[in-house]
C-alpha cells in the first residue's frame, strides 16, 4: 500500500509542474452553434434537466430553484441570459452546476445548456481577449477566446455569470440596452 501511495505523490507534482502553469482545463458545452467553456475547477457536477420551482417576479432567464441534496439552488437558462433564440428542453439538455465565491461565501448555481461536449486543455498563452461582439452576446461574461481543434471556444467568467444581485443587474441591463 505505502509504496504505491508514495509513488503517486511523487508523480503528481511533476505532472503539475508540467501542466498547471500553462495549461488550463475547461468544460466545453454548446448553446446553439456556439461553443463555450468554463474552468473545470468551477464545475461541481452535471445533471440532467428536471422541472424547477418557479420564482415569481424575476428575470425570465432565472428559471427557478431546485433541491440539490437539501440545498436550494437556482437554475439559470444561459440561452436566455445571452439573448440567444429559445430552444425546447430535450433529453439532451443538461444543467451544469457551478460554484463561485462571493465575499468569502461560496455560492452554487446551475446553468442550463444544450449539451456538454468535452473537457479540453487550453494553453494559457493562447487565450485571446474577447473582442466586442456588438449586440449578440454580452461580452461582460466572456473572459477570453481560445481555439480548440479549429473551433472557437468562448471562455466564461463564472464569477460574473453567477452574480445576480440588485446593482449588478442594473449595470448589465444598462450595458445591454446601450449596445
Amino acid at each position, binding site marked *: 500500500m505505502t509504496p504505491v501511495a508514495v509513488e503517486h505523490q511523487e508523480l503528481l507534482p511533476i505532472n503539475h509542474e508540467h501542466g498547471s502553469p500553462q495549461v488550463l482545463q475547461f468544460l466545453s458545452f454548446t448553446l446553439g452553434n456556439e461553443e463555450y467553456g468554463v474552468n473545470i475547477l468551477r464545475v461541481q457536477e452535471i445533471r440532467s434537466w428536471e*422541472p424547477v420551482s418557479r*420564482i415569481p417576479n424575476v428575470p425570465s432567464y432565472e428559471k427557478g*430553484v431546485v433541491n440539490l441534496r437539501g440545498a*436550494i439552488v*437556482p437554475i439559470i437558462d444561459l440561452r436566455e441570459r445571452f439573448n440567444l433564440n429559445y430552444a425546447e428542453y430535450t433529453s439532451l439538455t443538461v444543467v451544469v452546476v457551478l460554484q463561485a465565491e462571493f465575499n468569502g461565501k461560496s455560492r452554487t448555481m446551475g446553468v442550463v445548456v444544450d449539451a456538454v461536449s468535452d473537457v479540453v486543455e487550453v494553453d494559457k498563452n493562447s487565450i485571446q481577449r474577447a473582442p466586442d461582439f456588438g449586440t449578440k452576446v454580452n461580452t461582460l461574461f466572456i473572459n477570453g477566446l481560445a481555439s480548440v481543434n479549429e473551433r472557437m471556444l468562448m471562455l466564461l467568467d463564472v464569477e460574473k455569470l453567477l452574480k445576480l444581485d*440588485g446593482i449588478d443587474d442594473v449595470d448589465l441591463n444598462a450595458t445591454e440596452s446601450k449596445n
Partner: protein
Amino acid sequence: MSIDMAQFHQVFFEESFENLEVMESGLLNLDMGDVNSEEINTIFRGAHSIKGGSGTFGFTGVSNFTHLMETLLDEMRDGRRKVTQSAITVLLGAVDCLREMLLAIQNEQEVDANAIDSYRKSLETELNHVNHSGASDASPVTRDIQAHQPIEPLSNQAQGWHIAFSPHLHLMKTGNDPIRIFRELGTLGELEVTVDLQGLPSIYNLDPEECYLSWELRVTGAIEFSDIEGIFDWVEDDCDMAFQSYSDKNALANQSDQTDLISVAGLASELVPVDVSSLPASLSIVSAVEKPVEQVLEPAKNSSTTTEDNRATVKGSNSIRVDTAKIDTLINMVGELVITQSMLSLIGEHFDLTKLDHLKNGLAQLERHTRELQESVMNIRMLPVSFVFSRFPRLTHDLSAKLGKKIELKLVGEHTEVDKTVVELISDPLVHLVRNSLDHGIELPDERRAAGKPEVGRVTLEAYHRGGNIVIEVRDDGRGLNKDKLKAKAIEKGLIDKDASLTDKQIYELIFMPGFSTAEQLTDISGRGVGMDVVRRNIQALGGNIEIISELGKGSTIAIHLPLTLAILDGQSVAVGDETYIVPLVSIIESINVTDKMLNRVAGKGETFRLRGDYLPIVRMHQIFDIKTARAKKLTEGLMVVVEGQGMRCGLFVDDLLGQQQVVIKSLESNYRRVEGVSGATILGDGSVALILDIPGLVRLSNQ
C-alpha cells in the same frame, strides 16, 4: 493533553459564569444590615467554586482575587461585618471584574490590569475599613493600602521586603554564611525564611563545603532598602538575588507566581530595579524581574481600549448546556424508533397482503416517533429566557443609582423557553429597551410624587408564548410617550409633513426612525437616537416585530413578537395553478369561500371583501406572482385565506388548500437572492421546492 485541558477550561468558564450570575443575583437580594446567612452562603459558595476551579487550572490571578472576596464574604457570614451598601457595591464591582478576567482568559486576551487593580484596591479598602474600625480579629489581611499605590521604584516607604536569595555553590568558601545574613536581617524586622531544597544533591554526592540551598526571605517592617542592601553587600558577587517590596499579604501570596498578570500589575511598579547586569543572575531571576516589566507596559498600551470594545470580540460560545431529562427523552425515543424500524423490516422480509394492516400500523408508529424525535431534538436548542433576563436586576440596580431614581424590576415568565439563537440575538435589543424605560420612562421620585404615583417606579419584563410566537414585553409605569411632542419633533426633523394626520400607532412608530430622539438631555445611557431603529432592524432580522402601546402619564409597553425557532415552521400548503406555496400557519386567521355579495371595489380598482363588518383588501396570488396556470380567476371560484401580517389583515386569494405540515426553512439567499414576498423555501415530501410566503412582504407588493 493540552486539548483535554482546554476542554475542561470551557466547562470551567461556563460554570464560573453561572456562579457569577448566582453571586450577582444573591448580592442584589441581600437586605441591608440584615444578614441572611443562607444568602451570603450562596454567594460564598459561588466565589469558592470559582476560586477552586481557577486554582486548579492555574489562573492564579483569578483565584487570588476571589480569595479577597471570600475573605470579605466570610466576615459577613460570621457576623463580624455588617452588610453595608458600600460593601455590596464593592462586591458587585468585584463580580464584574472577575467576569472581565475570566472573559479575557477565555479569549486569550490581555487583562486590563489597571482596572483590576482598582477593583482590588476597593476590595482591600473595604476589608481595611473594618480592621480600622476596631474589629478585634487580627486578620493579617491589609496593612496599608497607600503603599499599594504605584510607588517610585526606589521608594523607601515599603512595608516589607521579599528577597529571593540563591547563593552560588562557593559562597561558604568566600567566608560568608547565610545564617549570619539572616540573623542580621532579623534585627531589621520580623523575618520569615523559606528554604528551597531543590538544588540539594543526594547525600553521596554532597560536598559539605558547598552551598546548595536557596531561600525566600520575607522581612516585615518599615525598612530602608539601603539597610537590606548593606547586609547583602558582602555576598553580592557570589549569589543571585532579587528584591521586592510588598505591602500586604495578598501581594505576598502572589509573589510565587510571577506570570500572574494581576499581581504583577500591582507589584511590578514596586519592584526595585536590581541592576541585573551587575549580578551574574540565573535565568529564573532574570525572568522574574523582566517579565513583570513587560507586563506593566502591555496594559498601559491597552488601557485605551475600553472593556466594551473587548466585549465585542468575545468568542461566541458554541456549546449548550442541556437538561439531562431532555436527553433521556431523546434516548428513549431513539430506542422506540429502532424497535419500529426492526418491526417494519420484519414485515418487509416476508410481505404478503395479509400483513397490510401491520404495515400500516408500523408506518403510523414510525411517523409518530419521527415527529416526536424531531420535537425533542428541537427542544434541545430551547433555553429559558431567564438567560437574558438575569442580567436586568443588575442593570436596574446600577442605573437607578446612577439616575437617582427608585425603580423596582419585576420579571415574569423567565422560564418561557425559546430557541438558543433567538435568546442570543434578543439580548442586546432588550437591554436597549430596558435602558430606555429606566432612563426615559420612569420619572424622578419627586416628579412621580407630584403626579400622584408611588415613588418607586416599576418596570416589568414579561415573556410568554402566544401561538407559535414568544412575546417579550417591557412595561413601565413611567411618563409614557408624548404624542404631540413626538409629532412636533418629527416635523422639526422633516420626517413627516406638517399637516400629516397620523394614527397613534403611526406616531409611536416614529421613534423607530433613524436619528429620532426626544430626550431633552443626552445621557450616556440613552438618547442619542441611534438605538431604536437598530433594535427594530435586529428584531425584524429574527423574523419578529415590535409594537408600542403607551398612555401619557401612565407608562408604556413595548412588545416584541418573535418566532420560537428559526429553523422550523408550521405551514399550510396552498395551491395556485400547478405551483405550491407555504403560508406560515401563525399568520392564517381563517379560510373562507367568498360570495359575490361580500365583494366590493374601492374606487373601481382595489378589491375588498367584507368579513363580519370589516373590509379587507384582497391579494390575488396569481396576479402578484404572475401564475398563468391558475385555475380560479374569479374570486368566487377559489378560496380566500384571511391572513394577518404586521397588524394588517388581508385576504390571500388562492386556488385551493392542500394540507398542513411542518416545514424546515431553507434559505433562498445562500445561493440565490432575496425575493420580494417570499421569506424562504422548503423541500416538500416529493423532493420539489416550495416557497414560503412572507405575508407583510406580499401586502407591500400588492400595494405597489
